[in-house]
């Protein structure tokens, strides 16, 4: 099986989906001849032509809006927003149109579109290129929000997103695009869009995370293992709708939980998960739920960004606090 990094896995999934289904089209800025600024669409333009791989003018709101129109007509557009910093103009289309076309027409029209965007910090990118707005998107009813953290999961979840009959925002952790490789079987098999991934079992504490922070969380689990603390790790990946069951079941077993994410603490998706646990795992909780997150500040420019991103140390320290709670 071929070893791929995350951006290659995204590229394979796109190619596979386009080969399988002529209604899949790709659009966005520089997705054509250039193959995308991160090369996620590399080779697609040559292979599928400029009717199905469409370079757009520089207009994010309309990119999303055009995708809505295409999807209503039964195409399966996969639109790229170059960075999450530019995903805000599309929010109007996502909230007011994409996510509600089905319900407002009682199912007469639907919106099977995907909006892809690289997400998060840690690559020393320019201002406005390192944000993690997943919670802003995940709170939109009628939308799915997915954020994979490995090449194989990116491959399977992107295929699922494209095949899903409803709109999906698919965020890709920029920091992981080329950070790691793993064997990915390009077999066209999708992963379910409503299941968390249990990456590590552990009886003492549950670490819940997603996106690039999965790396630091796994490292923290390893560190804790050395201290005799068995930490489980859950990659939420399919943020909305949420797989509450898997998370609650794990925390019911361990009684302790740390939630780690890169987005600002307040209103981050970690809040939703903590709230679910505070209601549904209440009787099992042995310690306060700890959140380790970006701060409630603007993402700093690169020279200070390492201080902003949740580190292995911060995650491990939160776990120790939870373990130490009487």
């Amino acid at each position, binding site marked *: 099986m071929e070893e791929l990094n995350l951006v290659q896995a995204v590229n394979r999934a796109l190619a596979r989906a386009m080969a399988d289904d002529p209604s899949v089209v790709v659009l966005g800025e520089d997705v054509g001849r250039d193959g995308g600024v991160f090369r996620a669409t590399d080779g697609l333009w040559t292979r599928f032509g400029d009717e199905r791989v469409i370079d757009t003018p520089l207009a994010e709101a*309309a990119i999303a809006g055009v995708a809505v*129109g295409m999807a*209503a007509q039964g*195409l399966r*557009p996969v639109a790229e927003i170059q960075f999450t910093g530019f995903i805000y103009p599309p929010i109007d289309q996502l909230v007011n149109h994409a996510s509600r076309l089905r319900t*407002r027409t*009682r199912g007469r029209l*639907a919106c099977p579109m995907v909006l892809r965007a690289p997400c998060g910090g840690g690559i020393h990118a320019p201002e406005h290129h390192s944000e993690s707005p997943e919670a802003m998107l995940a709170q939109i009813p009628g939308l799915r929000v997915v954020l994979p953290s490995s090449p194989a999961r990116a491959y399977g979840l992107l295929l699922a997103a494209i095949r899903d009959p409803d709109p999906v925002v698919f965020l890709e952790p920029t920091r992981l695009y080329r950070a790691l490789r793993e064997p990915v079987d390009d077999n066209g098999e999708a992963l379910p869009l*409503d299941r968390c991934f249990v990456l590590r079992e552990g009886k003492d504490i549950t670490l819940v995370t997603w996106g690039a922070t999965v790396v630091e969380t796994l490292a923290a689990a390893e560190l804790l293992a050395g201290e005799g603390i068995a930490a489980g790790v859950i990659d939420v990946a399919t943020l909305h709708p949420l797989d509450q069951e898997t998370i609650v079941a794990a925390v019911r077993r361990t009684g302790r939980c740390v939630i780690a994410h890169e987005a600002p603490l307040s209103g981050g998706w970690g809040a939703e998960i903590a709230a679910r646990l505070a209601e549904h795992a209440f009787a099992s909780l042995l310690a306060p739920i700890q959140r380790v997150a970006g701060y409630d500040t603007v993402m700093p420019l690169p020279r200070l960004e390492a201080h902003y991103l949740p580190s292995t140390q911060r995650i491990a320290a939160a776990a120790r606090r939870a373990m130490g709670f009487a």
Partner: protein
Amino acid sequence: MTASGASLSRFIGPDGLAVAALPDFARDAAELVRLYRAMLLTRAFDEKAVALQRTGRLGTFAVSLGQEAVSVGVAAGMRAEDVFLPSFREQGGQLWRGVTPLELFLYWGGDERGSDFKGPRQDFPICIPVGSHPPHAVGVAMAFKLRREPRVAVCVLGDGATSKGDFAEAINMAGVWNAPAVFVVNNNRWAISVPLARQTAARSLAQKAVAAGIPGEQVDGNDVVAVRATVERAVERARGGGGPSLVEALTYRLGDHTTADDASRYRDDAEVSPHWAEEPVLRLRRHLTATGAWDRAREEQAIAAAAAAVNADADRYLATPAQPRETIFDFTYAAMPADLDAQRRAALGGA
């Protein structure tokens, strides 16, 4: 009439007399009567909707009084297989395309089933967020183009909507891609309390097309023959691969913005009055009468027929029970996610 220097397309003047050789369809009196009846139906629908709203049986409603020729004319310029993307004041066009008064009453009465049109299944529901639907038209058009289907997307928006960035983005994209889409601005000179002069300094709205490199033209929006002919030409050009265009239909909002509005706060009657002489129903009646195709008896019969059709659907609307509570949940996704199902069950379980 037109400040842009471009010529304004018009066939029938305010006095009902032809000012130019009529297009083929308009030489057929039966066809003109069909257009006339469609405008009467629209007006009857609006009247009933306002009456229902005033008596607390319908929500806020946007009348199209005086603008019926734009709405009906645009729809009449399309083919059934084209896709219509209306704003919230295009009931005339929706009715023409087969949306029923019942469906419209349901929609404005606050029932989602009103957008589940049994007729034009692929038409878009009414667009409330002003100017956010032109990009949809481009997407629909690109789907047609990709599939080599000879169909056209037709989007109607207001003069106010031309100030929205989405409109500019959409017509620009349509231009680059030569998308089979036609954008029609229903220029009724007002966006709630904002008159056109405070909306833009552009000499005309048709000229907004220049920024997108697509053709733009003006039409007398009170002349249903001109609207239909102009839109038909634009639609057929798009269908034939000739690309997108923008049509500005000049009309006037004779009524309040909506039933929630009181135009007397910001608009003088003196401004409104002269426009009554220009209005499209009167104009076509004059024309039909002058050409002998119409008389008082037919008028009375037609008005009664329109009212009867509307009243029958109003009764059906009033007799339609609300949807069951669970429909709040049931169309959110194609398949019910476990997480939402839990909420659904809790909601139905009481509490």
